[in-house]
């Protein structure tokens, strides 16, 4: 397999009146996770659809596992796995039947396909539900099955389009751990997400995408440095304590804590040792604390700091539908 698993240059795609991708460059070395971070309609899904041979680009080149997504589309399909945001499993089949069908369509052969299906059901804790129709599955179980289907042929490159959107926190964490295990085993992953914490947790590198362009690219730490990291928010019991609180906490932070309407905000270092120290200092200064919260930067914070405006959902999906209707 190529050293660079995903190599995209100048990718463009236009749907009638909307430009979904406006010259996108992406690189993912083999065995890493590339996070594509952006709001709804930024172009993430269009990029995934092009890279998985579902949609031809208007311009630019894209190579996945060393194969061109247009010229070598047929050969490429045996090298990739796709799990979509809609959890594309057949709800009138059982979990086992779904995976077995996918295995057969990857041409694994009857025996190996069944064996692989059982193995994956086991690994995704779906063995007990293996012979139940998937329409009886919970949302989290469907996502797990969808991801398992993407892994059937042990593809070297995996595309996950918003794999955790709409999942409860426990299922989300389980899915993250599964993805990390795949990457540890050498798989390359392109993951799209609207959640900064997800990209932060999983991705080796993140490309922030907005209106079809990559507006920032780097490691999670590099991006967070540009955005500012986690902040500690302390709600004071009494507004009048504001000056005392600021004085007490000033030595802890590089920049002076800000206070507004009795809510004091200060940057926090990664170790979180600050929290205990801050509480101790406020206690010593006899400042009462009504509430304590850690605020993590959100996608909106990233966008505000990179573009000056909040993340706005654009019309990518709608445009795609209109395009097809017009064709």
């Amino acid at each position, binding site marked *: 397999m190529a050293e660079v698993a995903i190599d995209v240059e100048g990718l463009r795609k236009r749907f009638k009146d909307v430009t979904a991708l406006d010259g996108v460059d992406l690189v993912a070395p083999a065995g890493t996770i590339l996070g594509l971070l952006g709001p709804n309609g930024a172009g993430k899904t269009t990029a995934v659809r092009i890279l998985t041979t579902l949609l031809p680009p208007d311009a630019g080149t894209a190579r996945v596992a060393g194969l061109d997504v247009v010229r070598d589309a047929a050969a490429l399909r045996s090298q990739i796995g796709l799990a979509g945001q*809609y959890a594309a499993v057949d709800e009138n089949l059982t979990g086992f039947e779904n995976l077995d069908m996918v295995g057969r369509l990857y041409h694994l052969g009857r025996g190996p396909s069944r064996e692989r299906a059982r193995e994956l059901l086991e690994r995704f804790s779906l063995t007990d539900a293996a012979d139940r129709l998937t329409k009886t599955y919970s949302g989290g179980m469907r996502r797990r099955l969808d991801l398992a289907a993407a892994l059937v042929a042990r593809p070297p490159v995996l595309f996950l389009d918003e794999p955790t959107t709409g999942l409860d926190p426990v299922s989300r964490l389980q899915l993250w751990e599964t993805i990390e295990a795949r990457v540890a085993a050498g798989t390359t992953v392109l993951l799209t997400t609207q959640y900064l914490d997800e990209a932060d947790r999983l991705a080796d590198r993140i490309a922030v995408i907005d209106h079809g362009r990559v507006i920032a690219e780097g490691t999670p730490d590099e991006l967070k440095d540009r955005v500012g990291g986690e902040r500690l928010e302390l709600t004071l019991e009494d507004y009048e304590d504001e000056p005392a609180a600021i004085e007490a906490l000033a030595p802890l932070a590089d920049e002076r804590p800000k206070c507004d309407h009795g809510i004091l905000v200060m940057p926090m270092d990664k170790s979180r040792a600050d929290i205990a120290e801050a509480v101790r200092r406020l206690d010593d200064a006899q400042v009462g604390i009504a509430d304590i919260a850690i605020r993590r930067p959100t996608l909106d914070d990233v966008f505000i700091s990179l573009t000056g405006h909040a993340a706005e959902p654009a019309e990518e999906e709608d445009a795609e539908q209109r395009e097809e209707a017009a064709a």
Partner: protein
Amino acid sequence: MSSLAYVVADTAVIAKRNLLRIPRQPDLWSSFTIQPIIFVLLFVYVFGGAIQTPGYDDYVDFLMPGIIVQTMSFGGFVTAIGLSDDLRKGLIDRFRSLPMARSAVLGGRTLADVATNTVSLVVMVGVGLLIGFNFSSTPLEVIAGFGLLLLFGYAFSWVFAFVALISKSPEGAQTLGFLVIFPLTFASSAFVPPESMPDAVEAFAEANPFSTVVDAARALFVGAPAGNDVWAAVLWSLGLIVVFAALSVHRYRRAVSS
């Protein structure tokens, strides 16, 4: 494996998948069992008394071949709804991302729908016999008639596969399907003799391939004069299959789920 072997194997996998789904979707059954029965009862006991069918002692003998042809074409709705559903739920995206034969999803779908059409056929023949229909041709002709009807039903599955692929939703596919199929089935020789229609409609009905297939079924089931209808019906069916299979597979390659 050669690519032809892949086409056969992948089509079989998809056909099996669609067959497995049939008993698990009882809400779909009414469209290919109860609805055609209601049509039969409606025409025999409500409209039948007012319809003159010269050369037939009983309206039911005139009606049954026609209404079975209509039922076969309506079998296309099963194809359209199933395919539309797969598109909407993103399953088609998954299939298109797999290294499987490009024609297999549609080929497997339409093949499996021959099974639902067979069930419809059995139900219709059973109901017909119960309310007084008689086959008055040789057993061989009757069997040939069943074969022709299933071939025609298969052709309409391809027509409706294309309808589903150009529609935005199962509802849209159904509406478009009805717009195509109602004029075709009713302005034909299926329910009333075309001679009873106004000239322009009669001309349409005579040229309508539906009439050709209905007349062929009448020839094979009740010994009506056949002319070239049987061969013409076979050719029409094969022609529809070739044209709509090509159109559908072309469309499938670039299908987009909504």
